[in-house]
């Protein structure tokens, strides 16, 4: 094994270290200093090549901020993002531009993420033409081959986005991400704008591509089933922190954080005659100030005085499972939510 190969075997493909992102709110008063929102509050994670990480959490938990920082579309307030050991926020603009071939992004809205005035050929070739000026013929050949890989036809190359359905558009977006042969694809809610049947097709495609090219995904979703289907590891985010992480079977089978449990409980299940109780609405805790204690305590049914005073750190429970909860053990001991033990939320042969 060469040194380079050994390096890549030990260096994670993506490493995020203690990432903090603050946003300044618009000034409310001339005299008071403007407020701040803590979108990310010390997120650390790492991802080995070929593995996939799912990030779940409710709206406002900082998932998309994390995605934009991993893609180096914003500068973090503090912390670092290392792509194959290289800090993206410390390299020169030119180096960053070239490094961008290694990681690409698929966006949530297939209607908004494709320029309506450009042909599929131009859209898909964008990551290549942004860096250099390859000649037209080679470019068309590459675009055509990547279109075939995502299940579109060569004839689609000169069409415009509005001539495609939502699922096909998302395939175009995936083709655009694939054309530079990246190692990592950050997908921000890639299927949530699609019909359920189309969702499954796109997820299957993503899985096939992963097997074919050894891709890694950072898959951001609020849909636990999607993450379960595609990811080797899952991180649950709440108010800018990772509150639990582990393999999907651990997490969904025996969750250790009351927030994960609440998320799992909120998954709608089609069940004849089932009566669903309505949860009382809870005020979403503000991210603007750093209050003492666990951020989830105001919503947590198990919270006690200790929780409100001391913020729990992410601690390992088993080799692959860690959670930021003082009462992780008692949460794990709670009876499972569904009568059957962990069932795949999406059956494999879709």
């Amino acid at each position, binding site marked *: 094994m060469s040194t380079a190969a050994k390096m890549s075997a030990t260096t994670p493909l993506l490493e995020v270290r203690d990432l903090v992102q603050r946003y300044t709110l618009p000034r409310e008063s001339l005299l008071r200093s403007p407020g701040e929102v803590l979108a990310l509050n010390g997120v650390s994670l790492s991802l080995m090549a070929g593995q996939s990480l799912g990030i779940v959490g409710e709206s406002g938990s900082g998932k998309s901020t994390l995605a*934009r920082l991993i*893609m180096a*579309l914003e500068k973090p307030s503090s912390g670092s993002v290392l792509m194959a050991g290289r800090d993206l926020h410390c390299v020169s603009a030119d180096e*960053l*531009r*070239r490094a*961008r071939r290694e990681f*690409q*992004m698929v*966006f*949530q*809205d297939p209607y*908004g*993420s*494709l*320029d*309506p*005035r*450009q*042909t599929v*050929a*131009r859209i898909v*070739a*964008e*990551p290549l*033409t*942004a*860096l250099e000026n390859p000649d*037209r013929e080679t*470019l*068309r050949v590459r675009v055509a081959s990547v279109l075939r890989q995502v299940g579109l036809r060569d004839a689609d*190359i*000169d*069409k*415009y986005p*509005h*001539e495609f359905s939502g699922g096909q558009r998302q395939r175009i*977006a995936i083709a*655009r991400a694939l054309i530079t042969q990246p190692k990592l694809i950050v997908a921000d809610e890639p299927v949530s704008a699609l019909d359920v049947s189309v969702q499954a097709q796109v997820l299957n495609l993503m899985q096939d591509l992963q097997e074919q090219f050894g891709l890694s995904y950072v898959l951001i979703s609020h849909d636990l089933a999607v993450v379960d289907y595609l990811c080797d590891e899952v991180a649950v985010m709440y108010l800018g922190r990772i509150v639990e992480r582990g393999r999907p079977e651990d997490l969904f089978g025996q969750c250790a954080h009351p927030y994960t449990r609440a998320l799992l409980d909120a998954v709608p299940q089609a069940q004849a005659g089932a009566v669903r109780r309505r949860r009382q609405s809870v005020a979403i805790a503000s991210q603007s100030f750093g209050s003492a204690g666990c951020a989830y305590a105001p919503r947590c049914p198990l919270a006690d005085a200790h929780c409100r005073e001391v913020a729990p750190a992410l601690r390992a429970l088993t080799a692959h499972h860690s959670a930021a909860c003082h009462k992780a053990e008692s949460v794990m001991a709670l009876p499972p939510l569904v009568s059957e033990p962990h069932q795949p939320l999406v059956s494999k042969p879709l």
Partner: protein
Amino acid sequence: MIAQAGTAPAPNAFWRRALRHRSFVVGALLCLLVLGAALLSLVWTPWSAYEIDVASKLRPPSSAHWLGTDVLGRDIVSLLLVGARATILVGIIAVGIGLTCGVCLGLIAAAQRGWTEEVIMRFSDFTFAFPAVLSAIMLAAVIGPGMVTSITAIGIFQIPVFVRVTRGSAGAIWAREFILAARAAGKGRVRITIEHVLPNILSILIVQATIQFALAILAEAALSYLGLGTQPPQPSWGRMLNDAQTLLFQSPSLAVYPGAAIALAVLGLNLLGDGLRDLLDPRLARQR
């Protein structure tokens, strides 16, 4: 850059749709009429527009003078034809100035945000606060009245309009996800502006330009009427109105002809703008 064939609204389909659009067709015909008149005046006019023949002043329409003559005995048809030149020239140059400067500033404001945007927008507010006539009077005091004065004054007046329209629509494009995708691909602000923002706001700008053209014609007529624009003996529709004013009660028709010409040109441009707005809207193009 890559294949332009198979354009979404294919050229043929666009023209087929355009010819079915009533206000576009009427507007285009009126604009072509004015343009044709200006071009015709370069090669032929029934009489000279500069020759004074006091003996045959204020003639009613006849077979020799189709619309009669003015107080100096000049043929009205000839004056209208030659006057169209001034109208079109002022319109094109003034809108050109406004479009070029305004769109550039607007695109910069949308791309840079922050202080740059603030400075550009406050500057355009400042310019917008001066009516075109007022800045024309100021300019006339400095460089003297004339066509250059009116073109400059109208052009400057057009800039903030285009700045605002451009900034607003470009800002909306910058918020779209495909801009984020372009940034993720490694494109800089300049390239994104040229390759993504400008093509997406082009139809809005074209429509705005036709409306501004109509306003420029009105402003040119007003400035000529006030004696700040085109100077005699160069005829213009505004000057004709000015001359007709003193004889409004003896021969009101003198005011009617240039007035009707201005109204038709403005109407034509507005209809054309309306038509283009409908035709260039991709959502409408998609339906067919």
